[in-house]
């Protein structure tokens, strides 16, 4: 699918993540970033609405689809004065759409199968949740992965919890990122790809009121962006976004949570695709899943 040559209003046209081209799984190639939506939620959760998150994330992501808008030249990170060229993004970022609805078991089977197929093709799945109850399904589909968590419920003992830390005495906001990066390097087994769980609750609550698990303390955007850029330099089988409830009571019009997540995620995407000069050693990945 070629890029449009005419400007398209943000709210118009076919909705895909960052205006990426729609593909079927069989068209996904090694090195691609394949977006997959999981519009489902835990129906026993205290609030309803997380199933609307994939659409909300796609809607806000269109703002960052510069590569698909011919009127823009090239993006510059004004804070770092860092310029990137997004040439090639359109070829490597694709949107597979959402997993279709069904009974729980059917959904879990589809999630597992699709995740494995993406990985077996050597691509990285960019999964837009949804509730985090399907994260374990994704994890089971990638048994050889190391799991690292940005926010969300505490993981298993073998996982690396970037934030929040389980130690209640640690103030996340004052978290020593350098020390955590060293700890991450020690934990990391580079023979295994990563599964990254990125939950909105990693941010301090003052930055977003759209999280069902508000957290006093938490990280600011800069820290999360730094971590996602770092993770993007590793071999990653899947990154899963969770925790966004775009329709928290009375807050349906407020788009802060999705904007926050996609802004941070951009660092991962650019690093994963090797678009940033500061991360020239971005690895191409080969998947490591059971045949």
């Amino acid at each position: 699918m070629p890029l449009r040559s005419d400007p398209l209003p943000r709210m118009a046209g076919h909705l895909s993540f960052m205006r990426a081209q729609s593909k079927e799984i069989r068209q996904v190639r090694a090195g691609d970033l394949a977006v997959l939506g999981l519009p489902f939620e835990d129906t026993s959760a205290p609030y309803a609405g997380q199933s609307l998150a994939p659409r909300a994330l796609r809607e806000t992501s269109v703002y960052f689809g510069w590569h698909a808008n011919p009127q823009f030249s090239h993006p510059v990170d004004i804070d770092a004065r860092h310029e990137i060229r997004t040439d090639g993004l359109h070829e490597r970022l694709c949107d597979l759409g959402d997993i279709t609805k069904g009974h729980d078991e059917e959904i879990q089977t589809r999630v597992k199968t699709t995740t494995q197929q993406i990985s077996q093709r050597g691509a990285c799945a960019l999964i837009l949740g949804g509730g985090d109850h399907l994260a374990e399904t994704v994890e089971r589909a990638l048994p050889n992965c190391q799991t690292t968590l940005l926010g969300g419920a505490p993981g298993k003992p073998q996982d690396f919890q970037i934030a929040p830390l389980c130690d209640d005495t640690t103030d996340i906001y004052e978290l020593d990122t350098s020390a955590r990066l060293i700890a991450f390097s020690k934990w990391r087994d580079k023979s295994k790809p990563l599964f990254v769980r990125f939950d909105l609750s990693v941010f301090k609550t003052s930055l977003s009121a759209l999280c069902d698990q508000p957290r006093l303390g938490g990280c600011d955007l800069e820290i999360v962006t730094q971590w996602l850029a770092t993770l993007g330099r590793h071999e990653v089988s899947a990154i899963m976004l969770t925790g966004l409830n775009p329709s928290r009571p009375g807050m349906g019009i407020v788009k802060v949570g999705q904007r926050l997540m996609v802004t941070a995620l951009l660092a991962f995407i650019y690093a994963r695709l090797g678009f940033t000069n500061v991360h020239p050693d971005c690895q191409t990945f080969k998947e490591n899943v059971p045949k």
Partner: protein
Amino acid sequence: MTAALTPLNAPLIQPGYRLFDGPLHDVSDVTLGQIGVVGMPSDWTHSSRLGTRFGPAALRKATTIMQSIRPQDASFDPDTGLCSLPVANWLVDCGDAEVTAQDVNATTEAIAAMTEVLTVAGAIPLALGGDHYNSFPACLGYSRGLIKRKPATRFGYIQIDGHLDFSDRLGAWGSHNHATNARRISELPNVDISNMVWVGIAGWVDGGDLELIEKQGGRIFSASDVHKLGAAEVMRQALAHAMRGCDELYLSIDIDAMDAGYLPGTGSIVHSGITPRQYYDMLEALATAPLGGLDIVEVSPPLDPSERTEFLAAEMLFRILHRFRTRPVTAQ
């Protein structure tokens, strides 16, 4: 132009709110040194999330409510350690400009006509948006008025904003919209890009626009600069740059420079990390700046059900207008 309303023919209670609960008069009644308020309830030049057409009304209501709960006599500001007294007759609300949907030229001329009359009279136009496009007609009228009042005078320009708004065109919206206002202002005859400064820019910007601004001497302070240098220092440098060879300053306050976590009720949110306190510090750093005109834009009440956005924006007006609405109490 609005019909003249004077105290002699005004209704017993003027309906609705006026900014700072000020009197409602025609622009031609505003005099030297007064603030003349012009509402610009237009958001059809915004490309995505609307609602700023309700911004002027929200600002009028919020400033009036906040004014009513502040001391009406001498008061002490614990931040500055100074005592001050309210000033009378410092502001006149001139109502809203006539907005003609789908006719950008008509709307532009209606807004510009009001700010021009105010500027010629030596008053300071304060325009209430509306989306940020409306900053251009407000500044256009100021520019025209300044040419009539002081033909040789040039003005400096500071835009506090999360975005550059320096595109030449924006997609289907063409050359006159909320992403092109600064570009159109840069084309006015009595301002130079080398006297234009942007403060609070966040995230990713268009590389072409950035290059064009900086090649011509414009200056940009990112949100990171605000965090690293401090709000007051950034604004000190911004003012010094903007005022080189200029006598007056035009200030455009786009509320979206503040982090959306604090202020979600605006069309184009950013995550700048800029807190309300930092934003207010920036405005207070302009306490003695030679303001010739200003606008505040992008307040969109429908996008913030908590209503805190309009009150945060109203506080911005309290800060930037402090020297007009109060006078210091001198020691006896």
